[in-house]
């Protein structure tokens, strides 16, 4: 069965939807307005080279760019009950699911893989916003639990790349129940003393932030990511006030104690590799052994203007590889 899921289906799918030339060869940066050739973006992990704006990245691209040499073994995900509410809004939920599966080539919003990062074995899980806004339903919840259980079984650190609009409305309260269910899996990681690192990406909102996405031993966010529980529009309408600039963005969360650091996408591998190596008490990676102590790790890549020269360079220098690659 797994073999059919993992090998046959993707093959059929890739045969059916041959990789077409994208509609837009040029992508406009939403921040600076500059036009970037999509191949350049792809090569730069979907970070706009000029403005440093972090665009959304597809789940599989994320895993491939995260693991050493792009090599990982995808974890096969269990089947879950299909549309138990027989839900219908403007469209039947089952049709919506089918459309999204065809569009993304994924079964649901969550993918996971096991591979190496700077030589350390890790299980990483990613939510793909392209699949129904990365929403958390039974399939996504079960996938996260499955991935965490694999980390538990193999005694490996776990990295979660969160991106989600929140709970999947089409599954009603069954989707709400994924909050405590995934939390059980997080607790089991903690009890087994396995590091759990969360990377919040743009956007991570709603119920997802009220469960596994905020329970990491280490909380990292990508620059400029929208992270929050209640949507800005809902808050504005409730309190009838204009919200401050940068509200619910990663820098704001960092200043409010919710994050350990804001890290440029290009530096995630180094930081997470370091952290995992230290927390699992592995010998220092050769990459760091050959180099002098690397100051500035984990600094706020988003805002170099907070820089204070002098003694503080060590603590807040911008990451050296910010524009490498």
């Amino acid at each position, binding site marked *: 069965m797994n073999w059919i899921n993992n090998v046959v289906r993707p093959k059929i799918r890739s045969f059916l939807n041959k990789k077409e030339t994208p509609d837009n060869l040029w992508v406009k940066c939403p921040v600076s307005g500059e036009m970037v050739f999509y191949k350049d973006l792809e090569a730069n992990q979907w970070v706009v080279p000029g403005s440093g704006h972090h665009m959304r990245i597809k789940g599989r691209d994320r895993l491939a760019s995260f693991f050493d040499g792009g090599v990982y073994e995808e974890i096969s995900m269990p089947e879950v009950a299909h549309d138990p509410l027989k839900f219908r809004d403007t469209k039947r939920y089952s049709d919506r699911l089918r459309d999204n599966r065809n569009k993304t080539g994924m079964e649901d919003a969550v993918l996971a893989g096991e591979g190496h990062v700077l030589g350390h074995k890790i299980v990483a899980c990613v939510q793909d916003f392209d699949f129904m806004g990365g929403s958390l339903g039974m399939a996504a919840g079960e996938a996260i639990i499955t991935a965490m259980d694999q980390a538990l079984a193999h005694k490996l650190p776990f990295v979660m790349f969160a991106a989600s609009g929140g709970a999947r409305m089409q599954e009603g309260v069954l989707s709400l129940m994924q909050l405590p269910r995934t939390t059980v899996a997080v607790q089991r990681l*903690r009890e087994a*003393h396995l*590091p759990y690192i969360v990377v919040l990406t743009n956007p991570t909102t709603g119920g997802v932030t009220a469960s596994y996405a*905020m329970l990491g*031993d*280490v*909380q990292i966010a990508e620059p400029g990511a929208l992270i929050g529980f209640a949507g800005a529009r809902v808050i504005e309408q409730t309190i009838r006030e204009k919200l401050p600039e940068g509200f619910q963005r990663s820098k704001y969360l*960092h*200043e*409010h*104690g*919710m*994050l*350990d*650091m804001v890290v440029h996408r290009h530096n995630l591998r180094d*930081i997470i590799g*370091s*952290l995992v*190596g*230290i*927390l*699992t*008490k592995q*010998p*220092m990676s050769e990459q*760091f*052994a050959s180099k*002098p*102590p*690397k*100051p500035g*790790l*984990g*600094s706020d890549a988003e805002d170099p203007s907070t820089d*204070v*020269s*002098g*003694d*503080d360079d*060590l*603590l807040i220098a911008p990451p050296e590889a910010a524009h490498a690659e």
Partner: protein
Amino acid sequence: MQSYLDFEKPVAELQGKIEELQKLGDTGEAVEIDEELERLQSRAENALADIYAKLTPWQRTQVARHPQRPHFSDYVGHLISEWVPLSGDRKFGEDHALITGFGRFNGEPVAVMGTEKGSSTKSRIKHNFGSARPEGYRKAARIMDMADRFDIPVISFVDTSGAYPGVGAEERGQAEAIARSTEKCLELGVPNISIIVGEGGSGGAIAIATANRVLMLQNAIYSVISPEGGASILWRDAGKAKEAATAMKITAEDLMEFGIIDGMIKEPAGGAHRHMETVMDATGKEIAAFLEEFSGKSREDVREHRREKFLAIGKSLM
């Protein structure tokens, strides 16, 4: 630029003369200055040694607060590799006065935390002059919790005049945060070592200095309140800080005698700010010796050792 403390005036004058002479030498006006220079230099060195051999507690306080003294970030830069700072209390804010993170000491994983005073006007404001708020102590407790879970020893560097006194800090439970952090220190099943490198100011210090081994730099001070604070409470005059500094017994030598600290790290004449590397290397050696000694001890033993140590304080003075 070396800045001089009041009581270092004779040294400053000699140093001034030396510099003048050197300038003359550069212009080629003076002929035989080498001998004179040498003589002046050795006089300056002797004067410095004399002064530092008999520092009063109040003078020590000034050395402990010297702006050029090595700070938390200097120790981390010198002793820790692969440094990954972690921030935030996950409740309210990020406190730049108390810095925490993980890294490697001699290649081995360690958790590191400490108060940072900053060393330029801008960075001092950013670090709130080393006075932490509840967020700082809650972050420290969080990092200790992680260190304990992942079986990683904890090193702390203390340099604070005290926890920040402010309305917000009180509202958010400054006292509770300090109490919890101290409690977390005592709970640790992993060994912890604390070094008072500058000022060890009261509760703000003890929150991260309740350790299996507590060391002090020779010119550091450690007390229940700053000399100024003590003077204003007991003499009702902050100007009596000099007297308070002496009366309160705040120097490393005094605290060794009382059994409050486990050891003292010597500073060469002239203080840590004139011999940064030497002092930081010596500190590193002490940390290495401690970690070596405590490696292999069971979690119960480590915890029991710490508890017994603090319960025993004061008993020997009867």
